[in-house]
């Protein structure tokens, strides 16, 4: 029977498996040493440590990290040049204007790749994994795509907004996203005018961001909501409310009538119980279990409890998530390894957990793209589907080969692989294996499976893996059976460990988180 209790997990039940589960879900996994540190903190301390990340110092992100001027509005001089070129229809002048535009496009696309690399790099290095995990959650929730926005700095700004509200107040985040230049552009609200409202943002606010599809609203509510959002636009890098384009007349949204603006619209939909339940359902799939149909009839009581906590705390995210991560339900065996690693999770977790060098960030971004998740380029405003939708025959090989690349430095297409790239410091992992086997090297393969996999490997799997490591150590150490120092040495060290890791990361269970 699955434990549905939201009561905190007791200290007696807290162990390395629980700590690793927490670190995987509320972050991107970690080394055995980091797991041990969380074990020592106890269940409450560990959750507090991850969630109250403000106390962990991290590199400050400067606003000047990226060039905000690539897409700046044209100067008066430039504008008159463009107008003149159009007016005169002079071919050279028009070509000059086109050239200017192409140059900017090129620069901005290049910067967009830099922003991608920067964020992935931050996820890999950060001391505040939960902050980045939540930023990733909000990016998928308020999905906005660079291809439409075509402004790399606005994407960066939006990313900073998600980080700022990582565990903050959802209502305030909604208010901010309605003022976010990237979002306003993505969903066409920058063109939404009195008398000619664009319904895109209003629709998605109800359907995808706050209330959930078909929950408690009608087409009429969308039309009225769109009127409330007229005049919400931006200029350069900042929100601008244009009173001349705002429809200040009376509207009726969800049965309430008034001269509503965008904030009123958000407040009215947030006041519905459905909103809290919709959001908690999404958190549940992201943090607890993303098997098809989850949360299901049975586990709905969990999301209902979380939603009640969210409403009680006026949409403060942190207390609700704290309740979730402390709950007995979160640590139930049925939820261990019950999510499928997203491409970003797979990449970042493999690096953080094994301690392999991060290799080349551009290659890693290309790999996550091949696996179906390109940062800042979600497939649509619905964000990523997640769960089993990540997996098909093609992405499966990319996932396995990405791991080989991280562990050995060998690119799939490389003919001239430098073998020394596979020599990284495996001592921490070796120490962790030794600590779990008490020096009995026969237990090495089981220890490694326990350290790497999010599920308990089946006896068949353990036997298969043991057969492999036997062949490894046989080749490495000769067939000496005379006991002595060999039996006390780690079987899996150095090159043998690197080979073993390539194999472990290829097995289907490695994709579970």
């Amino acid at each position, binding site marked *: 029977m699955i434990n549905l209790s939201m009561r905190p997990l007791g200290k007696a039940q807290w162990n390395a498996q629980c700590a690793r589960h927490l670190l995987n879900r509320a972050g991107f996994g970690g080394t055995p040493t980091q797991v041990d540190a969380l074990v020592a903190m106890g269940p409450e301390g560990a959750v507090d440590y991850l969630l109250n990340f403000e106390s962990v110092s991290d590199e400050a992100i400067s606003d000047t990290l990226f060039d905000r001027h690539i897409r700046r509005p044209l100067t008066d001089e430039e504008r008159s040049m463009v107008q003149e070129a159009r007016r005169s229809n002079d*071919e*050279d002048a*028009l*070509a000059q204007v*086109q050239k200017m535009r*192409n140059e900017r496009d090129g620069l901005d696309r290049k910067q967009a790749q830099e922003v991608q690399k920067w964020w992935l790099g931050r996820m890999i290095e950060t001391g505040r994994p939960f902050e980045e995990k939540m930023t990733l959650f909000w990016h998928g929730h308020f999905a906005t795509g660079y*291809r*439409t926005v075509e402004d790399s700095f606005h994407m960066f700004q939006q990313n900073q907004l998600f980080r700022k509200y990582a565990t903050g107040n959802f209502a305030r985040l909604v208010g901010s996203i309605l003022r976010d230049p990237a979002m306003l552009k993505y969903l066409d609200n920058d063109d939404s005018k009195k008398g000619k409202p664009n319904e895109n943002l209003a629709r998605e606010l109800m359907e995808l961001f706050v209330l959930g599809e078909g929950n408690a609203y009608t087409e009429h509510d969308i039309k009225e909501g769109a009127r409330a959002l007229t005049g919400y636009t931006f200029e350069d890098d900042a929100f601008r409310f244009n009173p001349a384009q705002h429809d200040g007349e009376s509207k009726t949204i969800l049965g309430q009538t008034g001269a509503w603006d965008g904030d009123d619209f958000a407040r009215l939909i947030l006041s519905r119980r459905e909103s809290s339940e919709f959001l908690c359902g999404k958190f549940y799939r992201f943090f607890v279990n993303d*098997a098809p149909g989850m949360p299901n009839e049975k586990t709905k009581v969990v999301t209902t409890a979380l939603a009640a906590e969210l409403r009680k705390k006026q949409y403060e995210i942190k207390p609700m998530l704290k309740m979730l991560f402390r709950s007995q339900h979160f640590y139930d065996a049925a939820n261990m*390894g019950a*999510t*499928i690693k997203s491409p970003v999770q797979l990449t970042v977790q493999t690096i953080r957990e094994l301690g392999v060098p991060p290799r080349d960030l551009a290659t890693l971004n290309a790999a996550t*793209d*091949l696996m*179906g998740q390109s940062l800042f380029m979600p*497939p*649509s*405003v619905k964000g990523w*589907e997640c769960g*089993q939708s990540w*997996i*098909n*025959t*093609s*992405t*499966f*090989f990319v996932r*396995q*080969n990405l791991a*080989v*690349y991280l562990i050995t430095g*060998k690119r*799939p*297409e490389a003919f001239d692989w430098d*073998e020394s790239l596979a020599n990284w410091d495996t001592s921490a992992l070796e120490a962790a294996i030794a600590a779990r086997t008490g020096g009995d090297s026969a237990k090495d393969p089981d220890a490694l499976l326990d350290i790497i996999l999010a*599920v308990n490997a*089946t*006896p*068949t*799997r353990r*036997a*298969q*893996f043991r*057969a*492999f490591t*036997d*062949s*490894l150590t046989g*080749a*490495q150490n000769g067939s000496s059976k005379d006991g002595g120092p060999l039996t006390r040495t780690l079987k899996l060290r150095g*090159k043998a460990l690197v*080979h073993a890791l*390539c*194999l472990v990361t*290829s*097995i*289907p*269970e490695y*994709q*579970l988180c």
Partner: protein
Amino acid sequence: MDPITPFSRRIFLQQGITLASMVGTIPWFLQHSAQGMLSSDRSVSSRAGVPEDRILVVVQLGGGNDGLNTVVPYGSDEYYRARPSLGILAPGKDKGALELDKKIGIGLHPNLTGFKDLFDQGQLAVVQGVGYPNPNRSHFASMDIWHTGSSKGRSEGWIGRYVDCTCAGSPQADAEIAIGRTAPLAMIGVKTKPVSFENAKLFQWMGKDLPSDMTNMSDPYDTMNRAGSLSGIEAGSQAAFLMRTALDAQLSSDRIRAAMAKTPLVAYPNTKLATQLKSVGAMIRDQMKTRVYYVSIGGFDTHSGQANSHGNSMREVGDAILAFQNDLKAQGNDGQVVTMVFSEFGRRVKQNASGGTDHGTAAPMFIVGAKVKGGVHGTHPSMTNLDNGDLKYTTDFRSVYATMLDQWLDTPSAKLSNKVLGQAYPNLKFLRG
């Protein structure tokens, strides 16, 4: 031998098949092969009236192909006024167009000799002026519209939805194959995802190639990835799903690489598109059950110095598709395959100052195959009645899709297109009944 430490590949495979034959652990791939084997006639599928041996090949020309220099309206003075240096001369003149229809005054780009050949054989249909309302001139946005068949930003593509609609809930693992780095949006369905690879050699695990001075990695990898669902794994769990997919991936990989290993029956040119079509030809020859193949090349965004680069692209397209068609004929499969060529938009009527053309709107599509009604279909867009310097489309691209869906990929009565495209679009007549 200890049953859990077998080291020969043969034993692994036997073990894999034993496990796979148990109910509940049958991989999707095998399940469908088994269903296929149940029917004695290859052209009859489990679903009444659906011809299973019909194949669609989609060729994507990325960047916006210049339709006006592909199908040249040489009879129009406007054309030469708008393109003083880029205009292609009438047939018969030096580097003149290849005649398509004297009455209308249209011809093919002089480098499209491959297409001309097919046209003369009655195997090339030119659909003129294909586009859609409120054209979007952004590459990404317009490509998405072509892929989804909708202007409203859907996350599933038209081919993906087609497979979803016809697979009764469990898509075959290799129902659609795309050759390229990423899976095209057109092939993404709710249930269906295409097999995609740029190079069949890379469609497998790279860990096998690690130096084998220490041990053989292949056999243990196969043991752990070809077993299907292990005992002790709950059916319907995430782990079971992953184990089944792992087995499917291995089988697809074997199948595709085996197909590619054969030497093709005809010579293909050494170009990117030809290489991709050669792979498709090999898979068709090997009788894979794939219904839709997708290939794509770029290089059509000709903002400057267009004459040369576009000429080369035209040569590449015409020659590659002719070789592909010859291959299919040599295989005896030319009656089973229809190829469709499209680009996300055409280009402006007027050439620009850099000897190129900028993003435009409507452009021709090409349909190739033995079952195609060769000739010129539809109306060439007016060269004088322009929309802001751009052609006005005369045929909605979704009519082309609808025709493919209703007349080629399904029975005419089923009207699959309504389901896939969300509304009815008039069918065209470029296929022979």
